[in-house]
């Protein structure tokens, strides 16, 4: 999964704009637009309802089994989670910062290609990479054959790494998540700190010393942003840790809920995970804010790259290629091999049906979510400056927290809300419409709702980032020319936000394609998507049949990565 792209460089060029500036003052004097207020409030309530429902669930009776959970299970779950997060942060940090530095500072064969190709592993859902590596490192698999060929049957077998373990999960997650850190730290290296790097070098510092004494300290906020995103993703990962039998909070939550029968306990664990992620989000925002003021107003790439040629150049090329080989090439090759051996008629038609369904579903969800996200962000921007406006702004931030809840917990919240809605609203209304019983639970609407709540922060983040680049003078000029806020939104903001809206929508689209736990639980009758198909086959240990849908999800995931890499490329070569 992916969070909003931190396009800090672009914020730089237009200068920071903070809420509570002239626009809100202006709006307050003009009269707050009531319809916009109402629409925003309705949007917030809608999106926040399932999150609140989960809070209510967490207040329920935890059951007599809770002392056992707290005494024996919870400490282990927390410890495993800490190890996982720490491990992923360190390893993806080394890969991400290291490759970003090499690509930004040195010129070597295919350097330009790597500068965007290093983002590609991001497209791979972690659970898909996990499936692929289990097959790759299996007894009898390619690695096994090489090892036994080299060291003999006994030795080779002992040397085979145990991928289904905590270190295995750390590696798999790091391989698909390092691009977040690569992206933020590269932007920092070529952008604001570029000038300082030049100065450091002209003052006689070696590259090594420049890296540690200038580049890293300056890029620290950027690296922190990347790491916060990486840790958020690791914390909410379920597929990998489940498959590898690592009892982290997200996996242990199922034990508490299903085998211990404590729904409230599971909801509490979910809420505490939300707390941690909310904290990371705050840190990320703080990092971003600091970064905004850290550098000079004008961005500048470092004067020139150091040219590395010959054997050294190729060695560097090989080194930088490693993350792509392990994060993308090997898993994709394994999947292609598996898929090729399993393609047959019946499976293929099931595949096409669910592929079509996934695309329509994810497309609709992306559109709905980005529209709602735009409404919330724009509503927050124009709300004004008083107490109620402050409250509204906090609430729109709260509405973005769905991202921080484990998918299945959020699905339970959605179930509760829709069940109550059907019961309290639709039922009294008669529910009959041309003789058709109208219900929201168990329909596509339930799924769309769940996706909107889950991925709202992606929409909001991208739109907010886009809105900060639109100077409040635009709003003022428009208003003095007699346009209301709706008309402004339509004529000024939306056209100017096109890029941000597209990025947000594509990110949401891809995440919806991958989403599994909520889809499994909320889907209508006779309904398979690519993600549920992959899961169903994989849970039957039929990785061959799971390969084709898994591969498709991965390919779709490449879409936003290309989009982003193009943007990043622009930044890198101003």
């Amino acid at each position, binding site marked *: 999964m992916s969070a909003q792209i931190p396009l800090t460089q672009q914020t730089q060029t237009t200068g920071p704009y903070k809420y509570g500036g002239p626009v809100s003052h202006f709006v307050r004097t003009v009269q707050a637009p009531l319809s916009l207020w109402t629409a925003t409030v309705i949007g917030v309530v809608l999106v926040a309802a399932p999150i609140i429902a989960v809070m209510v669930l967490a207040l329920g009776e935890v059951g007599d089994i809770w002392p056992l959970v707290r005494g024996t299970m919870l400490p282990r779950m927390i410890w495993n989670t800490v190890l996982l997060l720490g491990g992923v942060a360190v390893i993806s940090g080394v890969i991400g910062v290291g490759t970003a530095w090499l690509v930004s500072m040195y010129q070597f064969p295919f350097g330009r290609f790597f500068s965007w190709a290093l983002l590609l592993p991001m497209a791979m859902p972690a659970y898909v990479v996990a499936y692929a590596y289990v097959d790759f490192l299996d007894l009898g698999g390619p690695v096994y054959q090489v090892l036994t060929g080299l060291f003999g049957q006994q030795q080779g077998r002992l040397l085979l790494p145990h991928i289904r373990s905590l270190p295995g999960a750390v590696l798999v997650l790091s391989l698909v998540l390092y691009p977040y850190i690569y992206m933020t730290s590269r932007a920092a290296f070529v952008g604001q700190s570029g000038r300082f790097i030049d100065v450091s070098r002209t003052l006689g510092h070696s590259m090594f010393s420049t890296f540690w004494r200038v580049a890293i300290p300056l890029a620290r906020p950027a690296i922190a942003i990347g790491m916060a995103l990486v840790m958020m993703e690791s914390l909410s990962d379920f597929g990998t840790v489940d498959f590898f*039998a690592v009892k982290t909070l997200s996996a242990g939550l*199922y034990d508490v809920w299903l085998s211990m029968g404590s729904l409230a306990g599971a909801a509490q664990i979910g809420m505490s995970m939300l707390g941690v992620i909310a904290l990371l989000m705050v840190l990320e925002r703080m990092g971003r804010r600091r970064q905004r003021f850290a550098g000079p107003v004008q961005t500048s790439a470092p004067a020139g790259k150091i040219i590395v040629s010959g054997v050294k150049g190729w060695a560097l090329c090989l080194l930088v290629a490693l993350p792509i080989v392990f994060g993308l090439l090997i898993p994709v090759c394994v999947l292609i091999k598996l898929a090729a051996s399993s393609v047959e008629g019946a499976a293929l038609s099931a595949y096409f049906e669910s592929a079509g369904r996934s695309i329509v579903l994810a497309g609709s969800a992306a559109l709905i979510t980005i529209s709602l996200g735009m409404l919330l962000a724009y509503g927050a921007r124009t709300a004004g400056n008083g107490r109620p406006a402050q409250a509204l702004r906090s609430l729109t931030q709260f509405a973005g927290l769905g991202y921080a809840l484990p998918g299945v917990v959020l699905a339970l919240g959605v179930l509760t809300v829709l069940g109550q809605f059907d019961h309290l609203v639709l039922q009294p209304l008669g529910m009959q419409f041309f003789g058709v019983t109208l219900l929201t639970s168990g*329909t*596509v609407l339930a799924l769309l709702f769940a996706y909107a709540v889950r991925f709202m922060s992606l929409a909001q983040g991208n739109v907010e980032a886009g809105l900060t680049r639109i100077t409040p003078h635009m709003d003022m000029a428009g208003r003095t020319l007699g346009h209301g806020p709706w008309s402004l939104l339509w004529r000024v903001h939306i056209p100017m936000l096109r890029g941000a809206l597209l990025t947000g929508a594509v990110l949401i689209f891809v995440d919806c394609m991958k989403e599994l736990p909520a889809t*499994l639980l909320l889907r209508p009758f*006779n309904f398979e998507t690519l993600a549920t198909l992959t899961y169903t086959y994989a849970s039957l240990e039929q990785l061959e049949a799971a390969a084709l849908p898994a591969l498709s999800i991965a390919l779709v995931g490449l879409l936003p990565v290309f989009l982003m890499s193009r943007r990043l490329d622009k930044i890198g070569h101003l």
Partner: protein
Amino acid sequence: MKLTKLMGLGAALFTLAIPVAVTASEAAGEMAGEVAGEVNVYSYRQPNLVQPLFDGFTAKTGIKVNTVFAKKGMAERLAAEGANSPADVILTVDIGRLMDVTDRGLVQPVASDVLSDAIPANLRDADGQWFGLTTRARVMFVSKDRVADGAITDYEQLADPQWKGRICTRSGAHAYNVALIASLVAHWGEAKTMTWLKAVKENLARKPQGNDRAQVKAVAAGECDIAIGNTYYMGKMINNPDQKAWADAVRVVFPNSDNRGTHVNVSGMAMAKHAPHKDAARALMEYLVSDEAQALYAEQNYEYPVKAGVAWSDLVKSWGTFKGDELSLSKIADYRKKAIVLVHLTGFDN
């Protein structure tokens, strides 16, 4: 510019319209279905396991079967939907989940002579709230090469130090293992079961992971010598070209056949409390215990039919007959919680 905007708007409306149209057409289909007959199933069972049965039912009655499959959260979905739930029949894979939906009041009793005649009394609820459909024995799959015939015959022996580093199993907290451990608690009491669990934990070749099939795969790969699993997985693997080699590497051992019998669990069904298609639901439930459906279970799913007189499949027969533990299922269900506590207290999954 104007034109692109309009096109964009058009595309947006179009995309928005699709899910609504899909929902509406589904709803309309539902209504149309009510005429021809339709029944909605919430299934914990893998779709490919039950689809042939539903196809048989539709062929016979013309009633369409709609399914939604989820392993986690079905009971919560039922509860949240309440009186509006479209669910008619609930299919589960074990006694635990069957008792879970029953205890939460999500099912309704069904009084049917067809059902009570076909299903032995110890495999159904006395009040008709739940019914067992098939039984499956929880057996040991032992390596043909590395475990001598008769070297292990009882669950008790899994605790023997001679198997140190040689046993594989899925998570102890999984419903299948919980039911097995609950049956041991019923027979031995908590203290002895705990000692046994600790000893078995010591003997594990690896941390519990994967499903029953994955354990047999591990035996085939030489990671361990004894796997614990349900019988029907064997049939599933033998008939899967990619997995046949795993099954060929092991032999089925029915534990405790010479004394109290092998632990047996059921897959089962119940009628949802607010079933909108009660008659169709009842028809489906009765069909599932018919000779035809029970034979299908035996032939295609390699499970043991609950109905007396229905032949086992040849493959199932080839594993041999066995004595099943006659402990009642409700007794096992009673000890489930204790079993789960023991699993976590012993750190079995760690």
